[in-house]
């Protein structure tokens, strides 16, 4: 069995699966249950200024039969007294000395405020701190959370204040509610962050109730924007992770967050440069027990790939993520349909016919049985047909010999300008 232990900027964990700072890590009771279930680490629900939470708080996005494809909340940070949290953190760390226990913090953007909370929290014995610059609602209206997380200068300043006082590693948690996440990632590094984590939740309004015309969720007939997370945000999180992972000035390890629900998601985050992952929605949907298959599945996957530790997986796909201008324009793939296994639902045909390049033809064989065939000369290799096909493996995208040498857009522009200037 492969070695699943991870080390994020000196914070050691028996496996790469942590619970994100959120309701699952609200109390000692919960975090202890989570560690018992197998979670390698937990980031305690954010501590900081006094808040009052509303009821109701959450909304779920169901697509067809898929419950909780997305999830949103208008919850704030911990609403329990700081002393109670600190006492439970102390007890939990005592009971689980080998698990990673990180505490999330959020206070007003004032140096003294940060110094004070850092000292109080570190005094009870924690493995690290996470600065919540991400919460998109409520706290932001008071100048905290994503309000400071969207301004690189504020991120840098606050990180450096924390670093003045902190003894343990400092993780800066970034908000995705920004055009270019690498701007704040670099600011965090410049402020002295030991690691970054991303993403926090994305601005969202879950829905409108068609009977009452209220927002979903609603509080006494009114609603406000919330934070979106769960499986649906995974691709967004993954691209933000990739941008940070390949950025030359982001020199610190990254904790990946956003839509991780299975060991497969986690493996993708690791490949794209995360040193570990944090999970919230999947645990809220199914309970702590899901970590068992995350560990088992990842471990089996590593064995299958002949790898002896997760470290060997981390970052292996980062170099494959690049700019559009560096993609080979002469690379060619076409769709091929396996008529043996095809069930003739014609979904690929109509998708291509109406919305792509009109190259999946419907035919009849000698026995009068219908079959589908791709006119490969006209196929642009867009993948659409293989995406809409309901049966795995029926449509494969196969490489065909290119008609010319590899050439990227950037190379083309360069070549053309060389020809132009030569004239």
């Amino acid at each position, binding site marked *: 069995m492969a070695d699943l232990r991870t080390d994020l900027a000196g914070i050691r964990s028996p496996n790469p699966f942590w619970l994100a700072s959120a309701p699952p890590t609200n109390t000692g009771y919960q975090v202890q249950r989570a560690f018992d279930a197998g979670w390698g680490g937990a980031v305690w629900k954010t501590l900081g200024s006094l808040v009052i939470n509303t009821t109701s708080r959450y909304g779920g996005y169901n697509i067809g039969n898929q419950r909780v494809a997305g999830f949103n909340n208008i919850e704030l940070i911990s609403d329990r007294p700081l002393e109670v949290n600190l006492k439970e953190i102390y007890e939990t760390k005592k009971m689980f000395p080998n698990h990673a226990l990180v505490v999330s913090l959020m206070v007003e953007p004032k140096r003294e405020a940060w110094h004070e909370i850092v000292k109080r929290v570190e005094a009870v014995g924690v493995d690290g701190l996470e600065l919540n610059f991400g919460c998109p609602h409520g706290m932001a209206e008071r100048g905290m959370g994503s309000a400071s997380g969207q301004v690189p200068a504020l991120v840098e300043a606050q990180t450096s204040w924390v670093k003045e006082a902190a003894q343990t590693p400092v993780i800066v948690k970034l908000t995705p509610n920004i055009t270019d996440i690498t701007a704040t990632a670099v600011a965090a590094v410049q402020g002295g962050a030991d690691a970054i984590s991303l993403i926090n939740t994305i601005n969202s309004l879950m829905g409108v109730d068609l009977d009452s015309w209220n927002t979903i969720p609603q509080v006494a007939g009114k609603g406000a924007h919330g934070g979106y997370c769960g499986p649906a945000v995974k691709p967004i999180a993954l691209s933000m992770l990739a941008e940070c992972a390949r950025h030359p000035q982001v020199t610190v390890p990254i904790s990946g967050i956003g839509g991780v629900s299975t060991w497969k998601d986690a493996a993708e985050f690791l490949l794209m440069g995360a040193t570990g992952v944090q999970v919230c929605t999947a645990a809220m949907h*199914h309970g702590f*027990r899901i970590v068992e298959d995350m560990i088992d*599945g990842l471990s*089996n996957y590593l064995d299958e790939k002949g790898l002896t530790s997760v470290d060997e997986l981390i970052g292996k796909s980062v170099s494959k993520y690049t700019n559009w201008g560096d993609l080979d324009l002469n690379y060619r793939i076409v769709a091929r349909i396996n008529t043996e296994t095809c069930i003739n639902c014609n979904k690929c045909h109509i998708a291509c016919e109406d919305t792509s390049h009109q190259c999946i033809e419907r035919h009849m064989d000698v026995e009068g049985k219908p079959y589908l065939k791709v006119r490969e000369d006209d196929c642009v290799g867009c993948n659409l047909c293989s995406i809409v096909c*309901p*049966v*795995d*493996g029926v449509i494969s995208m196969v490489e065909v010999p290119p008609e010319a040498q590899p050439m990227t857009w950037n190379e083309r522009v360069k070549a053309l300008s060389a020809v132009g200037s030569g004239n």
Partner: protein
Amino acid sequence: MDDRLRHNFAEVYPGFTSTQAMDESNRCLFCYDAPCITACPTGINIPSFIKKIATGNLKGSAKVIMDANPVGASCARVCPTVQLCEGACVLNDASEPIAIGMLQRFATDAAIKSGERLFAPGPSNGLKVAVVGSGPAGLSAARELARFGYSVTIYEAKDKPGGLDTYGIVSFRLPQEISLWEAEQVSRMGVEIRTGVRVGVDVQPEQLLEKYNAVVLAVGMGQVPNLGIEGENLEGVYDAIDLIESVKTDAFTGDMDGARVVVIGAGNTAIDAATCSVRLGAGNVKIAYRRTRSEMTAYDFEYSFAKEDGVEFRWLTAPKRIIGDESGKVTHLECVRMELSEAGKDGRPVPVPIEGSEFLMEVDAVIKAIGQTRLLGLIEAFSLDHYKGVVTVDPRTYRTSHPKVYAAGDVIFGHGQGEAMVVSAAQQGKLTAHEIHRQLNRQTAETA
């Protein structure tokens, strides 16, 4: 058997395609403290193995199944799931229950295909256990004991391991390679399976008791008993279990082509014998049973399976005499009609013959399928307490009247004790192993 017939004996239901398995596994609600787990006699963590199919962790999925049930691949095919796990699925009340058996088969088929060994033996503890019989109960006990570090030897009378899973359940429901894979998983953990050794004949009980720290008796039951009527020795009269075995081992030499067949009995065995005859090319197959459908012990799915195969049922019909021609071949079966009187001692209504209602059926073959006899000789050779051939055990510990001998599976089934099912035999084998471990551990602790 020619190729056309052989084709008839291929597995009836094809397994799930990956798309089916994905669709179905994603439909599972992943209930917490799920009722299906409790309904499974071996307590497989069903939501967990299904979730693992959905995440593409097929190896992990198969391990969850086989961990709780060492014959989980066979069970995927022969368990009466409607009565067990699927019957308990919460979706019965909302839509359709999850096809747990089919998903279990999908995951275990993948493990069979990969050929990997799923479990490792524990570090040796120096203790030795003999297991007599390699059916579901014996294999299951041996697998668990090997995991605890015991040196285990299985004694098996037949040429191949697996018990009725290998020889007794028709191949179109359970092909031999499935139960042989389960046995191979056990032998790859260091368990020695000595086939072709009949305890009581080739090895004596005393020798086992002397050589081993404990003995597990998992010998199942015997042949089909005699009907006790005239003509049982005629050519064309079969013992259902023998018949199925000869077909499953490709040793059947008879000719059923176009034959008129009557099967006597209405349990698992009768159904398997009847559907087996259909596949051997019989022209007409009837099941004659002295009670009615409601008293029949075969499961509903077996009943409908037989009906689909074109098997006819003759209720309240008991055999009286088998008639043959001068060459000794069966030609007729004389039957008598029955009626049910009020319930007898076992709570089931007693069938009584209607006087003068005798009638003749023209037949080419008669198959006896009225249950199985008890292996009295062996049980007495071990000097075990028993009631009419059903070995007496402490229901909690599976210990027999001999302190070193434990018993599990069909050998303890009967007279209100348990059910003759593969899955319950497996569970009893498992629990027996756990109990032996508890006992022997305690003993070694005391001596030390």
